[in-house]
């Protein structure tokens, strides 16, 4: 936080120096009387703007690795800085005005919206999550079938062993070991925990009443269960502990399967078991589109449809609509570019981080929200 502030100050300082330099250059060209050069100078003379982003570690690779570089050619006058601080910090800094964009895996709660009515939640892309396990003896293409209810019972300690009747009845013909299950959850604040616990809350009444959902929750006391930091920590813990199970963000899927982990086919609302394949995530997103309200704060968990994958979500930009005029213009232009299927939502930017583009209907709703910026 402190670091990014220093970085911001340094950038602002360099911006001032750059402006001074530009101004001098413009004057010189004007004196030379060259009309073409003069107009070119005039456009660069408008004060360069720096948009600061902090927040979700899931969105960070998209901003830092893809969008920042790409946007330089779209609007050379605007530079963007990004920092991976966690969604909660991003939200808090966006509300406080320290940064312009707080990247978050979760939308703001009703209570937060009441306290900060000028904030908007703008979906930038679609992400998903898979349930992964380390059960020796299962082959790579063999995916265990699991339901939200069974997962809720595993993570609350009601299902203790892999060959429990509740698991074997979902997986006829699969030989499961009589070994204690080691549930692995995130110990740090995480959008993945938000998604996973929301899935459990939506599919298990017991979980909803006892635990609920959030970016971190009061995990039931299960002997042997462990909490670890970060998606990398979960993958590492799953890989080094046989008979463990946990949840991992979609961008980690390849790395985790390389370590020999399997991932589950999850039971969706229609009762089918589906894998987190691109088309299943897209099917779920399409199914959820009609329910998206104007403020776009909605869970996309457990959408209906034969092929809908049940754990998907919007990745959000949390933005304060009250901005100075020049910043508002720059923010609008950037956000409109980011959600544009020919701009930031292009496959070339999203696929390296395993995100999917927004459905077309969402784009127009997001544009309406982006237009609120500046009031």
């Amino acid at each position: 936080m402190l670091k990014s502030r220093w970085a911001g100050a340094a950038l602002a300082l360099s911006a001032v120096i750059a402006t001074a330099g530009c101004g001098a250059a413009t004057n010189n060209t004007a004196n030379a009387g060259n009309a073409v050069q003069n107009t070119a100078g005039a456009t660069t003379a408008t004060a360069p703007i720096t948009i600061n982003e902090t927040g979700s570690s899931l969105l960070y690779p998209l901003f830092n690795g893809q969008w920042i570089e790409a946007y330089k050619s779209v609007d050379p006058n605007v530079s963007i800085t990004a920092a991976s601080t966690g969604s909660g910090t991003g939200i808090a800094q966006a509300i406080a005005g320290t940064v312009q964009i707080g990247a978050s895996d979760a939308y703001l709660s009703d209570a937060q919206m009441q306290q900060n009515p000028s904030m908007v939640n703008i979906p930038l892309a679609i992400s998903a999550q898979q349930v992964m396990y380390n059960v020796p003896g299962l082959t790579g293409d063999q995916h265990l079938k699991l339901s939200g209810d069974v997962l809720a019972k595993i993570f609350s300690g009601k299902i203790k062993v892999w060959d429990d009747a509740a698991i074997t009845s979902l997986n006829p013909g699969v030989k499961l070991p009589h070994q204690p299950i080691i549930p692995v959850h995130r110990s740090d604040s995480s959008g993945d925990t938000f998604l996973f616990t929301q899935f459990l809350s939506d599919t298990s009444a017991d979980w909803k009443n006892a635990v609920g959902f959030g970016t971190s929750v009061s995990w039931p006391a299960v002997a042997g269960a462990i909490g670890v930091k970060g998606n990398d920590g979960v993958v590492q813990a799953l890989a080094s502990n046989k008979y463990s199970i946990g949840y991992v963000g979609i961008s980690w899927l390849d790395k985790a399967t390389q370590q020999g982990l399997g991932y589950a086919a999850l039971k969706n609302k229609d009762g089918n078991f589906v894998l987190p394949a691109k088309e299943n995530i897209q099917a779920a997103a399409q199914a959820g589109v009609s329910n998206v309200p104007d403020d776009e704060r909605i869970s996309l968990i457990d959408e209906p449809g034969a092929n809908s994958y049940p754990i998907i979500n919007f990745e959000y930009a949390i933005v304060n609509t009250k901005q100075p005029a020049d910043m508002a213009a720059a923010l609008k232009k950037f956000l409109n570019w980011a959600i544009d299927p020919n701009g930031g939502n292009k496959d070339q930017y999203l696929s390296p981080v395993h995100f999917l583009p927004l459905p077309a209907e969402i784009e127009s709703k997001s544009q309406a929200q982006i237009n609120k910026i500046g009031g």
Partner: protein
Amino acid sequence: MKRVSSRSKIADQVFLVATGLCASSPILFLLVITGIVVVQSIPSIRLMGWDFLTSVTWNMGSTYGAMTVKNGVPVPAGASYGALPFIVGTLASSVIALLIAVPISLLTAMILAYRVRGVVKSALSIVVELLAGIPSVVIGLWGIVVLAPWVSSSLGPLLTHVGWVIPFFSGPVGTGMGLLTSGLVLALMVVPIITATTRDLLEQVPILYREGGIALGMTSWEVVRLICLPYIKEGMIGAVALGWGRAMGETMAVLMVSGSAINYLPQNLYSPISTMAAVIADQLDSAMTDASHMAVHALSELALVLLVLTLLTNLVARLLVNRSRGTRRAGMGVKAG
């Protein structure tokens, strides 16, 4: 002549103000930090009272649900903060670290102070001090990749054999991420601190005392046990307390190997735990999504408990080290006289 003197007077004044400002900054920092932590903790103290120290459940409540008012403070429904598992985890892991580190440090310090000389001595001393400079995240990484699997597959199962004598040692061993591994990692981090302090203490034992012991026909072990250790006793307690303070405040390495238990107390030596420092680092980001801000206040109170504990141990350590230094000086005086 006059000009020079007035200039040097001004310089002296500047020097006075500058040193005064700088010298008062540590007190100022301590006061400001303590003040902020106390003020931030007040809503949480009102919400939980003493239950904060004795209750086992840590729950931010339903942050996406409706707000309720509990004990006159607005909080999300279901919010309740009990820090006992984190306090127990902090104390237990740091005490295990000391049980392992103190004998190792003491024996190492004896060798460094009395048995090796010249190049070997300075080389060994440098290595010990380098150990203190390893970033804790590196030790944590080693803990996850090497130590935890080893505890799970080798050390843990071995220790369960004494489970019939000490029930706390019995299994199940689990994943290796937990109390024992945290204690081992912390031991590694406090060994250099205790070793360096103890070595300095041992070197200050007057040579005449030791020579006297040897002249009386004492063995090396007897000289150390009957002369050196009694001489440095108080300073030694101080050195241990310094290490303890370090172990309690360590965050990253423990966070990586503790298994981050929440809502339960350790059941055995291998049980996952959480420490106060690790919970603060882990939960702060989530806490910021709590619209009532109570989660942040609760973490502040946790910080307050940790601050009080570490300040107390440090204070006691300083007092004991200073007292033993005082006796030593008096002893030197007698010798010189």
